[in-house]
């Protein structure tokens, strides 16, 4: 799995960074528990029905509620047009969504410098687990082929090859904020003139490793998650992939969804896994993105919050939102009640949800909300799918282990064909 072109990137082509250069979103692709493709996401969100349910993909001792994609690896491989073989689920989900984003753009990428920047936190762990099961008993056993996809970069490189991406390809892993950082990196490379277009987002599959990891931290809810609710008691894991086709003005696409108006990456610098009580990291990410966008707080028509459903995250994020928006908190919701927490893919999937809300005119509901969190009395998310008009921009948050906090603002394209 190597790139066809020798020259992938040369930094000397950067002359200056043009921060005012617009970065457009010209294509969307996603796969989650709600279904395959962006249309399935849209109808799932409009329906207001959760796609969470019991885990069926593999055996585990844990009784958990998850957001699993309702297709076997074999079915996904067929959908992706792959020959029979063993692929990591992360790769399959990622390929389907990235391919959709590229096709949705309708862009002719011949002669363009197109990059692929993908986020993943588990990589090929689902397959490595199987290898390790044998290897742990006898270190001469285990099929080495099963390790080819282990490294996070392997799924990215495989997908890039399938999509004939001929320029810069990389992988980001900042845990649950990964995909927002991938989208940011893509936007910055376009502004720097290093690339004409980028497919950016993330992919992660469910596996025993993360089920056990989050279980050992005691932050899995055995019931359906209740983000931003006073009674919330943990998250549900999900899986999926979400990618955006980002491009400069010179690239022609079938439609223009929106532009990227602002973004920021900040670190909470509080604890390896927990968020600070004052939410300094999330405050800095949101406020810096807002500052970069040049928008006013009241121009934010909707926030797709990180809202995992853990007591700690939602308190920290809620306090940060309250501090930033004080008198007027924009309509907000966590969509984790639909899909579960898709970890490294969350920023990609939820960017797509936010953009669909912006372009189709919807506020998505925060499922299973009943009473406000005690940390911010009176803070109420959107509870029903609501049709809205005239939204200018939307904000999406993804925060992760290691204090990584990243926020992105998408804005209606003034020259858009919508």
């Amino acid at each position: 799995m190597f790139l066809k072109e020798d020259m992938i990137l040369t930094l000397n082509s950067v002359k200056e960074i043009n921060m005012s250069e617009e970065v457009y979103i010209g294509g969307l692709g996603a796969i989650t528990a709600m279904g395959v493709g962006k249309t399935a996401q849209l109808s799932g969100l409009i329906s207001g029905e959760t796609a969470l349910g019991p885990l069926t993909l593999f055996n585990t001792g844990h009784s958990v509620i998850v957001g699993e994609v309702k297709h076997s690896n074999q079915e996904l491989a067929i959908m992706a047009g792959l020959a029979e073989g063993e692929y990591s689920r992360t790769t399959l989900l990622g390929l389907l969504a990235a391919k959709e984003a590229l096709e949705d753009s309708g862009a002719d990428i011949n002669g363009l410098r197109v990059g692929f920047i993908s986020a993943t936190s588990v990589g090929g762990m689902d397959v490595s687990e199987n290898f390790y099961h044998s290897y742990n008993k006898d270190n001469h056993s285990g099929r080495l082929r099963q390790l080819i996809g282990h490294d996070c970069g392997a799924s990215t490189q495989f997908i890039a090859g399938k999509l004939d991406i001929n320029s810069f390809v990389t992988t980001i892993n900042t845990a649950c904020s990964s995909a927002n950082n991938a989208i940011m990196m893509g936007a910055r490379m376009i502004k720097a003139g290093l690339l004409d277009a980028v497919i950016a987002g993330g992919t992660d599959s469910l596996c025993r490793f993360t089920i056990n990891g989050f279980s050992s931290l005691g932050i899995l809810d055995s019931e359906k998650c209740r983000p931003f609710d006073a009674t919330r008691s943990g998250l549900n894991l999900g899986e999926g992939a979400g990618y955006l086709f980002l491009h400069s003005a010179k690239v022609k696409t079938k439609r223009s969804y929106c532009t990227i108006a602002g973004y920021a990456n900040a670190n909470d610098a509080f604890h390896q896994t927990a968020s600070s009580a004052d939410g300094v990291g999330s405050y800095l990410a949101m406020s810096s993105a807002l500052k970069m966008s040049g928008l006013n707080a009241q121009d934010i028509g909707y926030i797709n919050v990180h809202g995992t459903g853990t007591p700690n995250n939602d308190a920290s994020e809620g306090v940060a939102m309250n501090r930033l928006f004080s008198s007027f908190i924009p309509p907000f919701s966590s969509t984790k009640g639909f899909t579960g927490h898709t970890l490294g893919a969350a920023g990609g999937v939820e960017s797509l949800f936010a953009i669909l809300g912006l372009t189709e005119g919807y506020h998505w509901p925060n499922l299973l909300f009943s009473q406000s969190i005690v940390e911010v009395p009176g803070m109420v998310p959107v509870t029903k799918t609501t049709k809205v008009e005239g939204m200018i921009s939307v904000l999406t948050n993804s925060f992760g282990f290691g204090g990584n906090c990243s926020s992105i603002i998408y804005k209606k394209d003034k020259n858009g064909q919508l």
Partner: protein
Amino acid sequence: MTSMNLYINGMATINFSGTIQERGLLPEPDYKLYIPDAGIRRRMSRVIRMGISSALMALENSGGNDIDAIVTGTGWGCLADTEKFLISILDNNERLLNPSSFIQSTSNTIGAQIALMLNDNHYNNTFVHGGSSFEAAITDAYMLAMEGRKKILVGGFDELTPTKEHLLSRMGIWKKYIKGEGSTFFVLSSVKDEKSLGQISDLEILGGNISDEEIINKSKKMLENKGLSFCKFKAVLCGRESLNNYFTDMNISSEYYKVSCGEYPTSSAYGLWRGVNTLANAQRGEMVLVINSYLNEASSIMLVTK
């Protein structure tokens, strides 16, 4: 040169080449200078200890801790903790697991721990793309510098665990390559200061399956674009043994630096460190070229100027 330069205002490396058994006979760096809490230090895997310590050493070398971004790259990530958690899942049949190794298994652990120790709320990112992870981190740093960040901490690290050593042996890798691991950090800036050791004047990221001839042609072209040629160089540092022979035959001073650091995905970070060191007593304007390959996965060319 048309593009902006990226000054190296501080750097540090921790490296081992050879087998894990050989490594065990060598004295360890004095990690407690950088990670004073014995309990925390003990719970950290080698790569976390190496990463944090070399990062803090690089900052020390630069003369201050006031940074405004942390960018890291790792090909293998936090393997020891990943494996530890996998074993505990199997051994304990998914019950009563200790979360420490899960927490420390994500590749952004080192970047996050550095932020935590420095109480740094700035930009923080981690690239995990095999043999071009460090190069991606440099690309990010380059843009951050252009966006106005003054002091960017950038590093690459990988740990050779016993399992990795064994698995790569089963794959036949050690028949051709030297074992190794390490962590190297740089303090980069768009602004030159009295501590500046040199500057990264260009970087090209190339594919993996590239022949010696092609990589040399790419290097020549990079230099020609700047009106330069190999003979002007103080040295060429090669991360691929066969390239070294080519330069030696041409009477160009060169060395194969993997003898010192071994083969791991972010060994180009060590190559860069060595390149900058080569320029320590050089005149202003003197240059070295660092050409790296990791297995046949990725290659890169870095132009370093005093």
